């Protein structure tokens, strides 16, 4: 388990983050903090701006204002490849599997940014499907296999903060279950994880805290132990 001092260490702090796609203003001042070793989820309806928040952290949206601190370092002016070098691993919503590469090439593609990542062997053990199909073209995998690949890919890099966007989408329940175990293992290794998730059933038992996003703003912060008391609030926001 993580120590007390680590718990207070701010791995990520967003303050007053605005983001735009061309003319459309998507994020309207996001404020949130993630401590080292925490697993935090972003919940919200479709189109609330959760994926955009992750992309904004990676400097992958059109225009941004506000502040993003990673490890206490301001990164608003950093190019995306710099951000990755700070130890951030990003798994995008639409998988981003490269069709010109084989499965194995896809897997070994992201450069290792820190030591301590998983080895190829460990990854293949976790996802036997990928091992079987390792020489096929990346995009010839089934939808679910591609999702596994996208997730597995960043586990190799040794990143110590993971931004994961809808990683259970399209996965069979067995695999989802296994992914849950993986996330817990990662958390135990001290990694910081920001999880965007539709599947609340999956996220609830894993997370330390939940942020609820609506119309590009954080409207609620709920910690794991408040979950039952704030269930009704949550239901309202998520439109259940």
């Amino acid at each position, binding site marked *: 388990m993580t120590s007390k001092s680590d718990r207070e260490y701010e791995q990520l702090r967003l303050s007053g983050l605005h983001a735009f796609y061309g003319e459309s203003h998507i994020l309207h001042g996001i404020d949130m903090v993630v401590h080292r070793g925490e697993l935090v989820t972003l919940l919200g*309806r479709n189109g609330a701006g959760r994926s955009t928040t992750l992309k904004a952290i990676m400097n992958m949206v059109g225009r941004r204002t506000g502040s993003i601190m990673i490890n206490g370092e301001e990164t608003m002016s950093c190019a995306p490849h710099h951000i990755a070098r700070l130890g951030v691993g990003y798994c995008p919503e639409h998988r981003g599997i490269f069709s010109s590469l084989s499965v194995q090439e896809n897997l070994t593609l992201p450069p290792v940014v820190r030591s301590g990542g998983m080895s190829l062997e460990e990854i293949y053990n976790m996802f036997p499907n990928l091992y079987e199909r390792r020489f096929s073209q990346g995009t010839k995998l089934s939808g679910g296999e591609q999702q596994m690949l996208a997730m597995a890919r960043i586990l190799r890099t040794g990143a110590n903060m993971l931004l994961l966007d809808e990683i259970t989408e399209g996965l069979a329940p067995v695999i989802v*279950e296994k992914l849950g175990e993986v996330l817990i293992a990662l958390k135990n290794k001290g990694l910081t994880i920001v999880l965007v998730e539709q599947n609340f059933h999956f996220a609830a038992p894993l997370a330390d805290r939940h942020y609820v996003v609506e119309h590009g703003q954080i409207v609620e912060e709920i910690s794991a132990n408040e979950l039952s008391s704030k269930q009704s609030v949550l239901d309202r926001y998520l439109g259940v």
Partner: protein
Amino acid sequence: MSEQYVLETRNLVKEFKGFVAVDDVNLKVQKGHIHALIGPNGAGKTTVFNLLTKFLIPTRGQILFKDQDITTMKSAAIARQGIVRSFQISAVFPHMTALENIRVALQTFEGTSFSFWKSGNSLHKLNQRCMELLDAVGLAEFANTTTVELAYGRKRALELATTLAMEPEILLLDEPTQGMGSEDVDRVVELVRKAAAGRTVLMVEHNLSVVSKLCDRITVLAQGAVLTEGDYASVSADPRVREVYMGSDGSGERGTTADSEQSEAAQ
């Protein structure tokens, strides 16, 4: 005797350079059923769909629609026969409004699709039906919104409405609730139920709560072959299915209210 089966495959096989993705599948979809195809990732579900709609050519085997061999028919012809699919990855016409998206589908029946001399106003008579369909998926207020501007989940809803506009005899749905919030999931379940009235639905779905609520019959695929078949109760009780697909708790369900309560209780 096969009268009651609208769609049937016989010994269907698809190989990709030696890799057998679909292995001797005999699928029988009964008229009026909502039939689910489930199975672990990479089991070959999407491939079966692709074979049924001719986006892929079978290596071997036959496909029959209402006892007629359609193995060699082309994609568009199959759609016109009444077999219409919706895509796993959202498929819309991005620079048309939501309403126009649906109108394009409705136009197929007008027989004026080659009439380049006709005024565009001749399409207005379809607007009413478009609005009904949009309303059904809760997109009425977005009728005049350009589709690119819709959030992902809404695009999927729109796509479904477009598919329904085709009045298909058989509707093929590939993960219709993927990427949707629970609110939308429930709406889609209702929608599919409504849409299924009077027609047949074949769907791939990983959300077992949806499957359990909707489906009359379930085929489980694993490694390209049929593992078992039956109704939800019998399939979900099958230990092999639990092992390869459902996992230990056997629910595999996603964030419905009931589930989140359950999971809390688990905590």
